[in-house]
């Protein structure tokens, strides 16, 4: 494999971190959104007043 210059390495490092942040932020949004949807559905189905346990 060919050697890499330091500026290229910095770009790769930043790119790697950026992808990790994007993926985990997308997951954060998805998990939070899903929790709300599931909470609303559960409330609708059993009228129990929200996700089991509720927010402390």
């Amino acid at each position, binding site marked *: 494999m060919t050697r890499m210059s330091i500026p290229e390495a910095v770009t790769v490092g930043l790119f790697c971190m950026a992808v990790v942040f994007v993926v985990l932020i997308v997951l954060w949004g998805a998990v939070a959104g899903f929790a709300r949807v599931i*909470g609303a559905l559960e409330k609708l189905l059993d009228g129990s007043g929200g996700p089991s346990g509720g927010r402390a």
Partner: protein
Amino acid sequence: MNSFWDAVNELLASSGYANLTWTSLVMVGVAGILIYLAIVKEFEPLLLLPISFGMLLANLPLGGLIHPEFYNTGTIDFDTVFHDGGLLDILYLGVKLGVYPCLIFLGIGAMTDFGPLLSRPSSLLMGAGAQFGIATAFIIAIAIGFDPNVAGSIAIIGGADGPTAIFLTSKLAPAYLAPIAIAAYSYMALIPLIQPPIMRLLTTRKEREVVMTQLREPSRTERVCFPILVAVLVILLLPSVAPLIGMLMLGNLFREAGVVERLSDTAQNALINIVTIFLSLTVGATAVGDQFLRPQTLGIIALGLIAFAFSTVGGLLIGKLMCLVTRGKINPLIGSAGVSAVPMAARVSQVEGQKANPANFLLMHAMGPNVAGVIGSAVAAGVLLSLFG
């Protein structure tokens, strides 16, 4: 009579004793030290003991248990492995083909409670920040002359995740598997020594004293949907990470579904134990003197420590940012748990939190970033694999 002495001489010449070299003697000594650390000091004994014994076996000449030279090229010659290989050559195929790390992830998924992460999804940010050491170590490794594929494999030590490090290295730089795996597991065992000074350096006493409010209990539906959601979202975004994330989430689905107790039990006990024996024994066996005793090994060990330290710094800085944004509702100490190493890093956050405020119980709060770090390091490995694989 002469023929008798000839036979004795021939026997001695063909014995392992006559074929011992200084490199094999040094490696036997290193294996002895690691066995001591595993048994007496209890440093990650479940991994270190089979790793060190594998190292011992591989360095006893003429045993023929493993031939690392079979795997140094890009492709595997299965004919040679099956006909001329030893026992550990056959078992090593599971490492080389990336099977064992994925099966270990299946077991980890079945053992992991993602509840704290579901209760506070913002923990994912700390799991991302704690991969900072991967980028830093990569840049330094390139600066000191490592090839990009080797630099990527070394950098992943900063993810503090043994199976991920082995998975990536077996694909990118198999010749460096032994030093990288040993460095990764050794530093994971040393987390209680590495992290606390950095944690105290980067946080104020007031920040360390922050008491966090109790987490809500996620519903069963949330727990069951989570692994499916993560598998679909992450694999669609980053297909190269499918083997690791797919198995991690399958294991977690076994756990949370509640209808496959036997599968969940097998994944988190029998299966993971069997695979751990095969994986660590064969990884240790790749540490043969000629390939292990070279200047690069010292570089790898130093870079691994840098990666660990910077990952801790990254997690703590995101923790401090979240403390600031939430006006003191998040204790930044939980950020350092984002380096994976479940649950050791979370325990360190708990211990440091209690030192500052004995009424502080951070363990469950730290488990959120801790399990987020597992996903984060797998994603980072996927990026490096896509770039250099």
